[in-house]
């Protein structure tokens, strides 16, 4: 229970005028990017990554947190109004949410989403405050074998659970891991895959890969269809987004259930909040069928409330797992981990010991960000929709310019711009042919950890592979992985058998 005084100190740190400013800026930026059709919070964080090096670490991470959560709020605004989810995690919100909007209940839908996201985020942040130090304490028992198990868990789960084709997910992972091995080997100092080019000695920069895969690849992909698929974008309805007490009572249990479903997925790396949002939606739909007057299909408020709460509670918990274990569960979290590394910080138990100011100020800023986001989203959601008036060519031209700016500003080399272009083209190909991107990002970020820990473990056991699985923690992790895979296989088999009928 000694978390409370620390959190209070964190609030004191976060409530300085500059840090408060960064929370607000982050929330505004995140919401703005999230609102843009097709752009999600991971692209916002990717584009911001190079920019934040002009800031001190605390301010930078507070900004990131604001952008991350803001992107989720903005995504659901667009999912509801336009049926254009910016990220996979907002897809579940479109079903009932967009139907509510078509029904002329857009303000209520936006309010339901904003409150749901707020509840999920606040509860998750509270749990993280009390739980993260314990988790960090636990991770002191982690040796190389345990870290390797954790990395394998993240690799396998992200590449198999979310993607519809396991080989494609694994191939994406393999590309990420492969890119992470380029450069001088940290253990022996051997040059690897550099072709003698000094630009590659330090490896391929994570910033370059992140911006290429998540931002530039997306620009190319949208360009390839921009003049052919013309989405019908019209803002509908207006009015004040207040919920009636009856609506509030109707949505409340769904918010609660969604939050509970979302929480565990913040620690289980299955590729972010896509899985829990769909689970929450599905649970509500099943419960709805048993009611006397089923609401689903007609704009059920619960079908929107639950996934919104689930998405944000997963994201909140994911931040906890990132801080305490250094384990990224989604592409966005992987970028944040990369940002920590750029500042020379290693998330995990040591971070809580060495940089308590940063950790607690960041945790406190989650709460501030939630409140700020509720304020800027609840009454003004309709205003945000006005951002759609920016013509698409200028929007994407601006993003391309920003990609070049970010990468050149941090590397200062034309070489990195060409690398950015090359990897961006690979990112385009991956989108075009349906390869998931998250495994590549997670492979790139966790690759070095996986490699050094497996080599450390094998070196100290003289090449005995049994050393990788001889502790209870590794049994637990591999057991959980087997469970996750079993569920995935079961779901896939059921889907297939349903198709045959």
């Amino acid at each position, binding site marked *: 229970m000694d978390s409370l005084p620390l959190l209070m100190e964190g609030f004191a740190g976060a409530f300085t005028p500059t840090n408060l400013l960064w929370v607000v800026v982050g929330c505004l930026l995140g919401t703005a990017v999230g609102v843009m059709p097709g752009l999600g919070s991971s692209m916002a964080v990717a584009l911001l990554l190079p920019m934040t090096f002009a800031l001190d670490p605390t301010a930078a991470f507070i900004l990131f947190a604001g952008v991350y959560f803001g992107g989720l709020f903005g995504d659901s605004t667009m999912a509801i109004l336009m049926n*254009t989810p910016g990220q996979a995690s907002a897809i579940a919100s479109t079903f009932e949410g967009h139907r509510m909007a078509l029904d002329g209940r857009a303000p209520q839908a936006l309010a339901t989403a904003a409150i749901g996201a707020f509840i999920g985020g606040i509860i998750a942040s509270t749990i993280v405050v009390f739980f993260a130090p314990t988790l960090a304490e636990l991770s002191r028992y982690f040796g190389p074998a345990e870290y390797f198990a954790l990395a394998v868990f993240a690799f396998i789960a992200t590449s198999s659970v979310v993607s519809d084709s396991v080989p494609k997910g694994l191939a994406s992972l393999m590309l990420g891991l492969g890119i992470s091995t380029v450069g001088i080997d940290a253990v022996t100092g051997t040059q*690897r895959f550099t072709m003698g080019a000094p630009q590659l000695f330090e490896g391929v920069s994570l910033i370059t890969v992140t911006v290429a895969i998540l931002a530039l690849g997306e620009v190319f992909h949208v*360009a390839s269809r921009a003049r052919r698929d013309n989405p019908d974008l019209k803002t509908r309805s207006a009015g004040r987004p207040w919920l009636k007490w009856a609506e509030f009572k109707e949505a409340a249990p769904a918010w609660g259930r969604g939050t509970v479903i979302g929480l565990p997925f913040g620690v289980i790396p299955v590729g972010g909040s896509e899985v829990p949002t769909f689970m929450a939606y599905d649970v509500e739909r099943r419960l709805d069928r048993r009611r006397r007057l089923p609401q689903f299909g007609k704009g059920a408020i619960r079908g929107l409330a639950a996934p919104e709460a689930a998405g944000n509670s997963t994201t909140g918990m994911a931040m906890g797992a990132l801080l305490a274990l250094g384990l990224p569960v989604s592409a966005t979290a992987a970028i944040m981990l990369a940002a920590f590394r750029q500042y020379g910080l290693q998330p995990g138990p040591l971070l809580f010991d060495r940089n308590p100011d940063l950790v607690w100020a960041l945790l406190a800023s989650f709460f501030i960000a939630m409140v700020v986001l509720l304020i800027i989203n609840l009454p003004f959601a309709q205003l945000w929709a006005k951002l759609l008036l920016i013509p698409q060519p200028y929007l994407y031209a601006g993003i*391309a310019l920003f990609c070049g700016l970010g990468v050149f*500003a941090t590397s200062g080399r034309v070489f990195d711009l060409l690398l950015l272009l090359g990897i961006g083209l690979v990112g385009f190909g991956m989108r075009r042919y349906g390869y998931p991107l998250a495994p590549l990002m997670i492979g790139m970020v966790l690759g070095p950890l*996986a490699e050094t820990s497996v080599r450390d473990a094998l070196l100290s056991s003289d090449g005995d592979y049994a050393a990788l699985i001889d502790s209870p923690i590794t049994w637990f992790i591999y057991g959980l992985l087997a469970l996750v895979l079993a569920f995935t296989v079961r779901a896939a088999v059921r889907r297939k058998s349903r198709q045959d009928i």
Partner: protein
Amino acid sequence: MSTPMTPSSPAQDDALPPAGSGAGPDQGDLPGPTPAGAGTFWHGRSGLIMPVVIVGFSLYILIGVATMDVGDADFPGPQFFPGILGVLGLVLAGIIAAGILRRPEHPENSSGRSWRFHSDFTALGWTVGGFLAFAVLLPWLGWILTGGLLFWSVARGFGSRRPLFDILVGLFMSSVAYLGFSVALGLNLPSGILGGGF
């Protein structure tokens, strides 16, 4: 992005149509040119490019592993991990290629007509070419001019047809970025010929 999706298939919005003959499911009924390669082996199999990329990258790694100058490192040396990756990449590329050969992939087309290629290569050409020109010319022409060029070519790729206005907007954007990031935040952006020399 804007395609309505059914609730029951979270990860399946890009799912393949049911395996059938080589011809596209409904492409034949749409107005517009015949898709390139229709009726031939290659129709619906352009996805083979990805396994080719994966094989290329895997071979690059495996050749690097074979020719690596390691000295006398202990057993799991610097070749251990990449070696596994290279082999894994080859196996996966094989599985994916076999999948495409068995069931050709037809991407969803919501534009109401058919196209020679699913992707708009003119638009891609402008976007990619613009970025390439930006990267190569940056040290000589400087940030402001090349940034304006990049902005214009991407906007053109996305279908904007007002070159003069686009270039002005582009130059404005790149100048703002230059002022904000180079002058105010101290990031290093080249001034190029506008800075009076190289």
